[in-house]
């Protein structure tokens, strides 16, 4: 079709077609142009629009971004279990140092189980699971998933040694060091997943990046505290109870603040499946916190409250996940904030100055 040749010097035999002025005024006859011009004016259609509002334009309503390819159970589970593991290790280290073995031991097991599940979910979600180790080819601070892989590689063995030494009673000093190590790396495990989801073009994830780490950290604390309430006897579960209640309250406040402060991007958190999970998360978390306080003298009430907190934390992660997919599905979440940014930029530079890439207002021509 194209007969031009790319040579080392230049293109030979360029087609002249690309210089054609299509759609130009000259293409249309003067008579026709006059008729059209008058016709348009008579109809008076097209009010000058400068401020973008809820009205937005799109390509047949199709999404601009490609849909997230991750599976909700895999990545939702990965986020939740990572948080549970990290915060459990922190509490386990504290319990170890303050002489609460009946709280430390189950939390160490929970941490190992959760981090194993988290890693398994991550690997299961890969398109090529057998190439998981390619994650360790490079260390890239620009990729939270790369950083996360290295954090997991550091944390996993520490959590493993901590749990195994606790179960067997072998090498108590090594076990203690591993427990403390896991307790120090634990907060990173619980929070790196926030930059991981926020470092995307997904509006409902990216726009919440200032709040997401705090939501994830507090949700992790609530889950780990809940796990402590499920597994530890009443006389040793005090710190777990305080962590559970504190985490639950902070999570409720930060996640509500995040939804509110994100503006349009916060809307998916109140709609559809994401909305259902976020409401369930809030109900379970607050009920769990209340139960943990009211039922502090009952082993059963504590365990049930703990389970509610763990479930609430899982719901939070699933809610965040679905808010992301919902904000990708509808182009308005991509178009409207970007259009607004452009208009604001244009207003800041002074109206009418506009370069070639800035569309002129309609009335400037008529």
């Amino acid at each position, binding site marked *: *079709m*194209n007969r*031009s040749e*790319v040579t080392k*010097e230049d*293109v030979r035999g360029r087609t002249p*077609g*690309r210089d054609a002025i299509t*759609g130009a005024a*000259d*293409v*249309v006859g003067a008579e026709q142009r006059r008729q059209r011009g008058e016709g348009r004016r008579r109809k008076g259609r097209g009010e000058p629009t*400068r401020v973008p509002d809820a009205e937005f*334009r*799109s390509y*047949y309503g*199709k999404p*601009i971004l*490609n849909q*997230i*390819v991750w599976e909700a159970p895999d990545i939702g589970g990965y986020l939740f279990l990572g948080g549970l593991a990290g*915060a459990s290790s922190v*509490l386990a280290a*504290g*319990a170890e140092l303050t002489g609460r073995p009946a709280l430390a031991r189950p939390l160490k097991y929970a941490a190992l189980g959760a981090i194993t599940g988290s890693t398994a979910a991550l690997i299961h979600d890969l*398109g*090529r699971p057998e*190439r*998981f180790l*390619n*994650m360790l080819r490079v260390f*890239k601070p*620009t990729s*939270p*998933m*790369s950083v996360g892989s290295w954090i997991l590689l550091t944390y996993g063995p520490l959590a493993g040694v901590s749990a195994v030494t606790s179960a067997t009673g072998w090498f108590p000093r090594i076990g203690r060091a591993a427990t403390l190590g896991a307790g120090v790396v*634990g*907060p990173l495990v619980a*929070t790196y997943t*926030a930059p991981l989801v926020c*470092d*995307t*073009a*997904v509006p409902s994830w990216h726009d919440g*990046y*200032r709040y*997401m780490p*705090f939501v*994830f*950290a507090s949700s992790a*604390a609530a889950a780990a505290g809940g796990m402590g309430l499920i597994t530890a006897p009443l006389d040793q579960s*005090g*710190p777990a109870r305080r*962590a559970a209640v504190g985490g639950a309250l902070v999570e409720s406040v930060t996640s509500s603040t995040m939804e509110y402060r994100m503006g349009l991007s916060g809307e998916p958190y109140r709609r559809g499946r994401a909305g259902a999970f976020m409401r369930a998360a809030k109900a379970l978390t607050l009920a769990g916190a209340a139960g943990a306080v009211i039922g502090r003298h009952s082993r059963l009430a504590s365990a049930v409250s703990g389970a509610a907190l763990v479930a609430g934390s899982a719901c939070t992660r699933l809610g965040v996940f679905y808010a*992301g997919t919902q904000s990708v599905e509808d182009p308005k979440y991509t178009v409207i904030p*970007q259009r607004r940014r452009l208009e604001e930029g244009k207003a800041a530079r002074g109206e009418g100055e506009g370069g070639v890439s*800035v*569309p*002129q207002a309609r009335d400037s*021509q008529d």
Partner: protein
Amino acid sequence: MSVDSSGNGRPERVGFFTDTSVCIGCKACEVACKEWNMVPEDGMDFTSMSFDNTGRLSADTWRHVAFVEQREPLGFQDPGVGRPGPVDLGMPAFELPGASTGAEERGDFRWLMSSDVCKHCTSAACLDVCPTGALFRTEFDTVVVQEDICNGCGYCVPACPYGVIDRREGDGRAWKCTLCYDRLGEGLEPACAKACPTESIQFGNLDELRERAEKRVEDLREAGVSSARLYGEDPANGVDGAGAFFLLLDEPEVYGLPPDPVVTTRDLPSMWRHAGVAAASLLVGAVAMFAGRR
């Protein structure tokens, strides 16, 4: 349009200038791309919305021709702000075009066609977030996936602000336009540009393309096509300049392009700081939980 070394031992940055004002919607670029790169079929579907039965860019579509139908005059065009969205022209009929509508409406129709492609951003989010290093920047300043390294983590898919890269079903790896990396090495132009019959797709040295595009927009505006504007050519934009930029006749979102995309990793340092503070708070909070009485 030479892709040879420019004296410093490094090839020049190359890219695409897609001038949609001369696109005729033949989809030769889509076909040529599939043929050359052996891209599998992307579903034999009818979208029922327009002549666009490809839909979007994906793992199996590296060039996508968009068709936009508007009740706007072809000539004597206006700027394109505040215009209603695409119109439904209905099913093809046997009557004369415009016979059922009044004389006023007759002819008030234009078809915008645009061949979309990977933008090969200067600051590419897909490349930044790739945890394996499978995505890399070539000597031509293009962005390419190494299929023998990609483990299909899927992180690049939501990272791309244009919705270009995608994971292939059944294959599990991420795929996108390579700007015909294999052809560039041989001094050939990419298959889509080669196949384009109207030179709507122009390939070459990026600086040269930018100059040419500026000139083209001036010419069009002078001739009365006031809605002509460039998209993505500005090195100061959210992705620090796209390696593939466009001349559009309406707002970008009408073609399914984001109006003002920003590479997500621009905010990453701040994200890490916030996460660090959150992690420290978790640690301090836990200490406080144990510091209290029993």
